[in-house]
């Protein structure tokens, strides 16, 4: 027997011709905590989904060897039966059920004939909670009365209630503050040392990985780059960043030519926003940005840095409360109290989640494209000019190359890349001067990405001010003339096209983290 609990060998997984994982290898030793890191979209979650059977055996190539035996999981149940438990980033708790009920959700403690044994449930739940450092918790209170940090621990407790040998945590600390994170990481160490649980942790917080992991595997663009081992290799944040980013740029980004950068046409000053459900929690602090005509400006930062919250709060107060600050478009101060105000003042926001916030999936391309511009450009006195609608949607379909049979095709049947183009067209049709593109290429293939970048270039050429929000730093660097680095709702720094690099962005984020730790 080898001392590896898990070996994933030569895993390749394609999505309609695009390789999300290409010959990936991951070896995890028994009784260690193994970190998995890489940029967003590098393939970490895909790899874990392959492991846990979400993508069943046969849809990928390569072997999974677990405890010395080749596994062919067809669904989550089969991998769980073997003791592999995955905890996703989004909590899977039923908020109104009690702590004890949640701990045994889907794994109910029953007497004969399927009747729930409440005494046993409560007793066992308390035992398990003690193992994750929640020994003083009342198991009878609804789970939503606890904080996010404790809820995350209850997720772990839930996993412990099952037979678990290999625990996979996908960004467990993303929603936690430093103290809560530390507690969670310490519990992982405790589980390893006292209960023999092996863990894989996916995280963007490199300092945490440095703290908790025994070894690390770095994935980039669907390839394994390297594995580092504590005590053998250099094991520092800088080393990991180098592994994550060290890549040559080929022309994945079309060159932007013949653009003259003009005057500042979009400015946001002293912008402050509070959380929509918690008036005490400040999400955006004193943000100031400005964008010139023909300029593409990036907002870089980690997930949860507050970029989307900032953009949406500017876009007609679509996020947050107690919003204060000034917005200037074309030199004039404007008040944007609703999305309609924003559209009327030539501001457009292409949301990061096209399916939830961008499209009516059951409706056709034509109606989706004209949805935001209908009132201002496709109607007279409230009556829709459906002929003009058809003409314009045909034009945009051609112009940005939406691959569909006709403009009558239902949007839900299009690929992600083409859906994204429809959303872009929808906002271009409102004839904006300023466009905020939030994760404009999330989850779409390389070819479609290139086409989207071409559209961004065209917009700049047409003298629009474009703001690109992206978690893929390469994308920010490849497309933007200037970059604001945002961290914890504040501007952590600003970088010009010549200065910007992934290391610089990460350094500014880390430096900002240190500053705010020192202050608070």
């Amino acid at each position, binding site marked *: 027997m080898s001392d590896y609990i898990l070996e994933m060998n030569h895993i390749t997984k394609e999505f309609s011709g695009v390789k999300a994982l290409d010959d990936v290898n991951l070896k995890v030793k028994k009784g260690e905590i193994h970190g998995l890191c890489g940029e967003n979209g590098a393939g970490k979650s895909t790899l874990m989904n392959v492991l846990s059977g979400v993508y069943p055996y046969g849809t990928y190539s390569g072997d999974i060897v677990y405890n010395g035996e080749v596994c062919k999981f067809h669904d989550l149940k089969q991998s769980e039966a073997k003791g592999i438990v995955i905890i996703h980033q989004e909590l899977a708790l039923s908020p109104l059920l009690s702590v004890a009920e949640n701990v045994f959700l889907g794994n109910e403690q029953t007497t004969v004939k399927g009747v729930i044994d409440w005494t046993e449930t409560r007793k066992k739940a308390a035992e398990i909670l003690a193992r994750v450092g929640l020994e003083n918790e009342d198991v009878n209170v609804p789970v939503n009365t606890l904080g996010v940090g404790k809820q995350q621990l209850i997720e772990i407790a839930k996993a412990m209630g099952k037979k678990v040998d290999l625990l996979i945590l996908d960004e467990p600390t993303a929603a936690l503050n430093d103290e809560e994170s530390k507690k969670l990481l310490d519990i992982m160490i405790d589980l390893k040392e006292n209960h023999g649980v092996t863990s894989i942790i996916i995280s963007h917080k490199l300092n945490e990985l440095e703290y908790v992991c025994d070894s690390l595997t770095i994935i980039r663009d669907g390839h394994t780059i390297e594995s580092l081992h504590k005590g053998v290799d250099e094991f520092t944040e800088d080393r990991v960043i180098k592994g994550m980013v060290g890549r040559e740029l080929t022309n994945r980004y079309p060159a932007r030519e013949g653009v003259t950068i003009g005057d500042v046409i979009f400015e946001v000053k002293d912008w402050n926003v509070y959380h929509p459900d918690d008036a005490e929690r400040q999400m955006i602090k004193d943000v100031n940005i400005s964008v010139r005509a023909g300029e593409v400006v990036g907002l870089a930062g980690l997930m949860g840095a507050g970029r989307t919250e900032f953009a949406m709060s500017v*876009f*007609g107060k*679509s996020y947050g409360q107690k919003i204060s600050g000034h917005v200037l478009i074309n030199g004039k101060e404007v008040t944007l109290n*609703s*999305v*309609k105000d*924003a*559209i009327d003042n030539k501001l457009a*926001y292409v*949301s990061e989640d096209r399916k*939830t*916030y*961008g*499209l*009516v*999936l*059951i*409706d056709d391309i034509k*109606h989706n494209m004209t*949805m*935001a511009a*209908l*009132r201002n450009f496709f*109607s007279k006195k*409230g*009556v*829709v000019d*459906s*002929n003009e609608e*058809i*003409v314009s949607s045909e034009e945009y379909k051609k112009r940005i190359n939406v691959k569909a049979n*006709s403009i009558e095709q239902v949007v*839900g*049947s299009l690929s992600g890349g083409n859906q994204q183009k429809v959303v872009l067209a*929808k906002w271009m049709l409102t004839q904006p001067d300023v466009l905020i593109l939030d994760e404009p290429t999330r989850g779409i293939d390389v070819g479609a990405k290139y086409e989207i970048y071409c559209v961004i270039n065209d917009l700049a050429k047409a003298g629009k001010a474009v703001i690109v929000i992206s978690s893929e730093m390469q994308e920010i660097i490849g497309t933007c003339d200037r970059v604001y680095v945002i961290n914890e709702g504040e501007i952590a720094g600003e970088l010009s096209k010549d200065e910007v690099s992934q290391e610089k962005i990460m350094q500014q984020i880390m430096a900002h983290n240190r500053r705010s730790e020192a202050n608070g």
Partner: protein
Amino acid sequence: MDKKKVVNIDMKQYGMFIVLIAVFIIFAIMTGGKNLSPANINNLIMQNSYVIILATGMLLCVLTGNVDLGVGSVVALCGSVVGVMLVDAHMNMWVAIIAALLVGLLCGMFSGFFIAVMGVPPFIVTLATMLMGRGATYTILKAQTKGPFDASYNFIGAGFLPKISVGNFDLLCLIIAIAATVAIIFGEIKSIATKKKYGFAENPLYQIVIKDAVFIFLVWFVLIKLGQYSGFPFVLVIMGCIVGIYSFITSKTVAGRQIYALGGNRKAAQLSGIKTDRVFFWVYTNMGFLAGLAGVVLSARNGSATPKAGDQFEMDAIASCYLGGAAVAGGAGTIFGAVIGAFIMGILNNGMSLYGWSTDIQKIVKGAVLLGAVTADLMSKRKKS
């Protein structure tokens, strides 16, 4: 030059229409042609007028992904207002009508306020208005029937346009039939011309001819039957106007498209500049107004106001929308579909009554038809995707 684009007419939108004709023919055979008589055709229209008015308003609610359970009670409440004003207070008929419509409108605004401003789910709000409306009706009428009304009021629900008699036949119906035929043909020519002008895809000519021929045949069939009976019913004028206006609103106006967008994806609609709360408010306010109108028509047809009036009308209206192909989750459906749905329910009721089945059996059949139609619709969609 581009190749001339030709696409087939999408048969799906006429699916229920074909079912309607089929059901009618089946009952014609079962009842030995009893349902084809001029009197019965007239009955079909008059009996179903209020359900069609309600289904029109209900479709807007269904498009948002919700229903209004309170309409039956609002119908009764508005009828009771008319009853008290005409019979007890001897007021002017027009004052009573306006009062009834206002009460309907206020009921709608009441629901709309709680749904849009307070954020209470429409199901709960309208469940409450259903109970409150019925209770208020019983209170106002003191659980008694108020009537009879003057013939001038009853004209709204039971009257006919003045006849131009030629023997036993009403020439007016013929004139309307000719006008409708001209309108259908003219509209089709205009639509073809627009498609040519913009270079849009056209339908094959034979399909257009068949489609229009079927519609023209139906228009003539119904109008000749009406002409042989008492002429053109006044409710048909009201119904025609309502259906026409709301078809226009849903298919051709920004307001209509906002309702579809809201039902299809509320968050996306909000982020596209649609004030979704406002849309909700007006959809429910409008439903209240139409319920008021249906209340007037119903009380006029009955010649009295009874506390039990409009019982379960909401269910007929909701069923009509779903039968007509509206999506349960919202965002899809047409006025045309809802009207067809309402007529299918009406023809089923009418045919089964003529055949001699009891109302108990009728309910079973209606339930089964609704379930079957929606199941079939879902299955056909699933196969596609």
